[in-house]
């Protein structure tokens, strides 16, 4: 089983998996495409036969030649050809669109099932490229490649057949040149693809340099590095220049090369065929046909070789996408939980898994955890939290506070020990039940693009407009929103750049409580919130924490002081536990942390009020 690791299936394996994945649902389209391509190849090959007959007729009969008949034949072929072209652009285009849609849907939905550990190990940019560009390349290669192969190969075979039929000796001469031609075409196609890939890489490097330069432009100015920076950049642009030239020249040499090979075939046809015509063993029409067919070889040959090269170079994409789809999610509902959920659905139980809805108590029992097997970040953690209690977690960065919160949310599961809800291991409850009872405020607030209203509603999709506003009022953000020109309909831009961090924090706060969660997890943000926002946040906090179990990764004294339980975490261990008063009296670690924070906050107050 692939435990959230990227598997690397063998090359043929990946293609095979893909084939079954795409072929089955689209079987009919593939078959129609095959037939259409075959017929089109036949029509393409027949055109020159009309020309041949026409020329022979004119040479033989002069004015008596029945041109109308040829006009009908030609017209009929044209109409059939155009009809088939029309049809298979639609078929292949439709196929590629459908494949892209399916692959993207499957990858996206699969990602929704994977656990956090997977996302810890894979950058967003990397995953995004798999879902967007890889799927697109695969879909295009599969659909258009299929079409071009189904059309090109029969077309080539038909031409060879006709050539041999018309004059087998001359036919063999043209045929003998074909392997060279195909070889040259493959050689060029592979090199052009590779050179394009290198070019893209250099291009993204240049983008990265621009990004970094603009971010560090002040540093460069202050260190008077402008000239050296430009010199360095010129190395990149020089590389881009060389690679781009290489790519352009390869492409522009390709066609003349192929053309010369083809002209050898037509030249030979003219020489040998012409001689045969003079000797009376060949008609002029056949000579013309020979020269035309020699040229006609080029099109299908180029298409086929291009698609074969692309197919070969797409293998890596296929492996990556299939590999992604084969990763197995780590944290899932167990089979017994799934059975409970099925039963609950039938019986119409109040909770999705048929368990008790109200949370009376949460217990961490001997919990240890490590993100990697050899690096334990939390050791033998024990804690019992009764309903309604507020737990403040304090300690240095990296001490393991966030890990406790992540374990509680079941983003990760304990490596050892258990987390119990109402005395029951939370792995015996469904993920959906637990997570729908959670409200989370993250340290760096993340909002989706859309309106402020839709962002708050994310916490409870069924909430009415009144409920959205009530939630906003509860966290003191209603007035701020109303001051905006469009109020709740204000559009949050991508990444939320049009709102201050404080505003985003408050909105995400409203989002967390609108679902009236039984458990609230807050990673308090100290930095980047202005004094005013902080004031509002503090004021609302008390009402919000009331009546739920809250885990607060606390920085601010006011929050810490008002907590029912304060836990001091250090290097993955619980070192002190108690109330504000009892811990201060101990004069231990908490006392020191508190003192330092007190100084920081007084200082901030002074520095920001001036």
């Amino acid at each position, binding site marked *: 089983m692939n435990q959230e690791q990227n598997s690397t299936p063998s090359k043929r394996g990946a293609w095979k998996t893909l084939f079954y994945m795409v072929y089955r649902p689209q079987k009919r389209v593939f078959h129609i495409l095959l037939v259409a391509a075959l017929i089109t190849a036949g029509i393409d090959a027949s055109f020159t036969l009309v020309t041949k007959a026409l020329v022979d007729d004119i040479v033989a009969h002069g004015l008596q030649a029945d041109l109308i008949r040829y006009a009908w034949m030609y017209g009929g072929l044209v109409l059939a050809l155009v009809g088939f072209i029309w049809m298979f652009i639609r078929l292949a285009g439709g196929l590629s*669109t459908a494949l892209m849609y399916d692959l993207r849907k499957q990858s996206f939905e699969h990602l929704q099932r994977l656990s956090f550990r997977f996302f810890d190990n894979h950058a967003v940019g990397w995953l995004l490229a798999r879902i967007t560009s890889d799927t697109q390349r695969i879909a295009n290669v599969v659909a258009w490649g299929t079409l071009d192969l189904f059309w090109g190969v029969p077309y080539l075979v038909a031409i060879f057949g006709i050539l041999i039929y018309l004059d087998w000796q001359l036919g063999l001469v043209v045929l003998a040149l074909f392997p060279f031609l195909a070889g040259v075409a493959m050689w060029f196609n592979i090199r052009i693809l590779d050179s394009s890939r290198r070019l893209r890489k250099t291009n993204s490097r240049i983008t990265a340099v621009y990004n970094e330069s603009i971010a560090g432009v002040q540093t460069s100015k202050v260190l008077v590095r402008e000239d050296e920076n430009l010199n360095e950049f010129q190395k990149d642009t020089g590389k881009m220049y060389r690679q781009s030239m290489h790519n352009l020249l390869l492409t522009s040499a390709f066609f003349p090369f192929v053309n010369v090979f083809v002209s050898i075939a037509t030249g*030979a046809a003219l020489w040998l065929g012409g001689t045969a015509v003079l000797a009376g063993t060949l008609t002029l029409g056949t000579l013309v046909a020979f020269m035309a067919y020699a040229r006609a070889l080029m099109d299908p040959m180029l298409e086929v070789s291009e698609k074969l090269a692309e197919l070969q170079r797409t293998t890596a994409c296929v492996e990556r996408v299939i590999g992604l789809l084969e990763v197995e999610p780590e944290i899932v509902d167990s089979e017994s939980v799934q059975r409970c959920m099925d039963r609950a659905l039938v019986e119409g139980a109040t909770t999705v898994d048929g368990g008790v809805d109200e949370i009376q108590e949460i217990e961490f029992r001997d919990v240890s955890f490590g993100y990697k097997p050899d690096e334990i970040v939390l050791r033998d953690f024990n804690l019992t939290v009764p309903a309604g209690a507020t737990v403040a977690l304090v300690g240095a960065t990296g001490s393991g506070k966030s890990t406790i919160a992540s374990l509680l949310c079941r983003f990760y599961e304990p490596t050892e020990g258990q987390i119990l809800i109402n005395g029951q291991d939370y792995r015996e409850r469904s993920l959906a039940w637990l997570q729908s009872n959670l409200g989370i405020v993250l340290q760096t607030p993340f909002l989706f693009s859309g309106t402020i209203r839709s962002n708050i509603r994310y916490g409870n999709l069924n909430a009415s407009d009144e409920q959205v506003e009530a939630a906003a009022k509860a966290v003191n953000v209603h007035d701020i929103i109303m001051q905006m020109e469009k109020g709740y309909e204000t559009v949050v831009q991508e990444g939320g750049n049009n709102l201050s961090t404080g505003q985003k924090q408050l909105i995400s706060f409203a989002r967390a409580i609108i679902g009236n969660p039984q458990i609230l997890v807050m990673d308090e943000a100290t930095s980047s919130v202005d004094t005013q926002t902080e004031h509002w946040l503090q004021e609302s906090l008390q009402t919000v924490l009331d009546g739920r179990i809250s885990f607060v990764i606390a920085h601010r004294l006011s929050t810490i002081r008002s907590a029912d339980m304060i836990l001091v975490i250090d290097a993955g261990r619980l070192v002190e536990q108690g109330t504000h008063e009892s811990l201060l009296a101990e004069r231990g670690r908490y006392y020191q942390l508190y003192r330092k924070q007190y100084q920081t906050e007084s200082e901030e107050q002074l520095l920001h009020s001036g």
Partner: protein
Amino acid sequence: MNPSKHHHRILVDLIRNKRWHYLGSVVAVAIASYFMFLVPTIGKVVIDRVITDTPESDGGFLNRAIDWAGGAETLSEHLWWAGLAIVVTTALAGAFMYLKDYLASRACEDTLKDLRERLFAHLHRLTEGYLNNADSGDIVQRCTSDMDTLRQFLTRQVMDMGRTVVLVCILVPLMFAASPVMAAVSLFMLPVVFVYAWVYFGRIKSLFQEVDEAEGDLTTIVQENLTGIRVVRAFARQEYECEKFEQGNARYRDLNMKLIRMLSNFWASSDLLCLIQSGFVLIGGGYLASRGVITVGTYFAFTLYANMLIWPIRQLGQQLSEAGKATVAIGRIQEILDAPEEPQSDAERDLPDDVRGDIAFEGVSFGFEPHRLVLKDVSFKIAAGETIAIVGPTGAGKSMLIQLLMRLHDYTTGSIRVGGYELSSVRRQSVRRRIGTLLQEPFLFSRSLRDNIKFGRPSASDDHMVRSTTDAAVHHTIEAFQEKYDTVIGERGVSLSGGQKQRVTLSRTLLRGSPVLVLDDTLSAVDANTEQQILKALSRKAGEQTLLIITHRISVCRQADRIFVMQNGQLTEQGTHEALHDRPGFYRQLWRIQSGQKAQFEDDADDARQEGSLLNAT
């Protein structure tokens, strides 16, 4: 000036610089076109002179060549000459086509390289005012994706379009010369196909854009889902996300299908037009040939000529209607190049190498808007070698002081002198070379630590570098890394803590050596002990190097010769620690907070609660 003309100024300039290359490629493509024309002509001559033995009235040079070589008789015995001629002519056509591509590619790529470098250099000269207000993502996008659009346009569309135009110009007269009737028969569809393609693509332009946007939206959905995966899971919104994705995915699919249907209509119908053209040549030519109006050879040649033009013409129409995209991109690039650069005048001088580090501000006021001054009438004198600590609340104008000193902004009122030289008459680069500054936000480039530290002085020796890292108390930290000074930092390497970054940037500035050193709150993330160690190292240069430290720490202030307190753009207090900590004011408040005794701790909290100013929650 006409704005649209103005917008393309850059392109016109760049093309003008390469005009000989472009001219050369036009000549090359003209020659290549002629050879392309010759290939079917050879077939024609062979058919007419040798095979059907039609008396040839016009004396084309091929006919004269045959006569010179011994007439049709000789050729019929040596028909391989004709075969060889076809191969050679094709090769020559290919060679000249390649030459054209070579010249044109050189010109395009040179142009693009120039433009990239010009943009890059320009970015480094933009004024602070512009950079602060600009969206850097947008600037980068203009420098990259708009450049890509331009590159595609120059290297593909312009080259193809130029080729087609020259081809038409060469082939059409030759065809008319060969047979006016047949030329008319084989060309009449050309304008129709051209206009058809041009109009059709013009009309579906908006659909293309819609498809692009739908794809962009879909990408945004995925990106937001992945970036906000914690939020998605926190609210168990996987299903909702799948639905949202499904909407975007289906919308893109449907639009894409619509586009494919439009394209299939176009390709099929335009194919029909082109094939009708070929049909006319085939049947009409056959008629003329059977009537003896044209020779069979001419008939043969024209079936090939017609095909040489009709397909490129169709593409020309499409490319012409797509050229609009490139125009927009060029305009956007031009806008960046038009953004203001830091002004520079020839009257500016360089500071002498041995300039002294005394600094004098006299009545300096500064603000971006006249009624909102950031600095108000600031005057002070600092002797060379003095150490000054500057404290004050956020937004008091401390950093602006430094930015004016570095000439990142230009002061308009008052006077700033360094070593007796009025700053506004000194070259910016020279000022920056003589004043070592650490900006508030430590910025490191994603390259090795060695390259980062030597960033401001690439020629420095490793010994020198180690001296500066030792002074910045970061040498041992670096030595502890596996790759030591070769450790690559940033996205693809090790990420440093805030304090480590600050110390590395300090060593970078120290390595440059300068009579004035300015630290803009640069040691905030460094712990107190390390900070003391660094200050001790810096104090070795006391007396020769003027040191300005913006700080919040009393411990740092105590070691300064003088302390400046800035509030609301003004210098409100100055003096030694001893003098200031007794006087009521900002400095004393700060000192009291930081020196808070254990015993005072709870009392202070009570006081604060009573005043209601320091803490607002109980």
